[in-house]
């Protein structure tokens, strides 16, 4: 399963969501499908995409928030699962693309390659719904269920360790950040 195919399969579903991604391939691939002002790419600070999504979801309970995390990033901030589970916002969907490696720095294998089970960790942390998917069809279905459902969900998507040739996009970091905030403010006014 390719991450890009997963992202493509839910791209239209993301229309009404606020989206926070991690750096590297996830950001570049989502951007390649077409940037929207509702997408925020956290191009550093590994581990904090889920915390950012949690802050957004708690402050905007009527707004659906989806985080595209990765195994390497989540392993740097496993405590985030326990904090998300503690507050379990119903409007937060936590997707983890697990390619068992730190791809953008050359493919260093992460602990999920030697058996660490992120779905199990999420469940044991108290996340009310945690699933692992291995096909694009199941990925699309799981994301759709989670977005329309009423429960904090962590979706572990097992994907191949391949990505784009480069990671630079034409949206500068600050432009992205100001546009994202302005977009949210416009939603709040309307």
């Amino acid at each position, binding site marked *: 399963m390719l991450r890009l195919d997963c992202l493509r399969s839910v791209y239209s579903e993301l229309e009404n969501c606020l989206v926070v991604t991690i750096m590297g391939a996830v950001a570049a691939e989502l951007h390649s499908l077409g940037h929207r002002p509702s997408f925020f790419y956290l191009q550093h600070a590994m581990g*904090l995409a889920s915390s950012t999504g949690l*802050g957004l979801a*708690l402050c905007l309970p009527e707004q659906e928030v989806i985080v595209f995390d990765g195994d390497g990033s989540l392993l740097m901030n496993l405590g985030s699962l326990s904090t998300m589970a503690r507050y379990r916002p119903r409007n937060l969907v936590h997707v983890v693309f697990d390619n068992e490696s730190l791809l953008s720095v050359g493919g260093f294998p992460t602990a999920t390659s030697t058996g660490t089970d992120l779905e199990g960790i999420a469940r044991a942390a108290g996340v009310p719904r945690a699933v692992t998917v291995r096909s694009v069809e199941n990925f699309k279905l799981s994301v759709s269920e989670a977005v329309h459902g009423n429960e904090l969900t962590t979706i572990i998507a097992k994907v191949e360790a391949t990505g784009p040739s480069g990671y630079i996009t034409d949206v500068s*970091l600050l432009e992205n950040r100001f546009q994202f*905030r302005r977009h949210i403010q416009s939603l709040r006014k309307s």
Partner: protein
Amino acid sequence: MVSALPETWLVHLIRFADEDPEMTLVRLAKEEEGVGISAGAHFAGVKSAMLMQNHGFMASINGIVSFAHLYKIPLLMLISYRGTFGERDPWQTQGGNVTEPLLRALAIPYFFLDGVERVTKRIRQAQTLAESSLQPVAVLLTRDLMWEE
């Protein structure tokens, strides 16, 4: 929105935040999460603060540099300043030595609160500067303010 990790000096402040109907308290596993929580709150148009010990500030530095500084995110950091004059706990003392040098190295504006008289005004000023400059600002909560021997 207030994110926090407890420590002895902060117990009462965290309880106030928990009991205040105008505040949402987020109890963290590690302080660096608070940078992400505050960024999310900022994007949502909600004011926030981080309550933590100076060792928690140290544990947050990558988040401060590679999120708050990189993306110009306002952070109001209320930091209990352990390990300075009067400190009896040996384990706090190294952190006391390096807190201000680290704040200066990171070019984070900071000041001390050592009496109750101007607490409200000073914290409001810190919040104003964080919001106008879009950067982290630190308020060091000192022994004289926080602790009676």
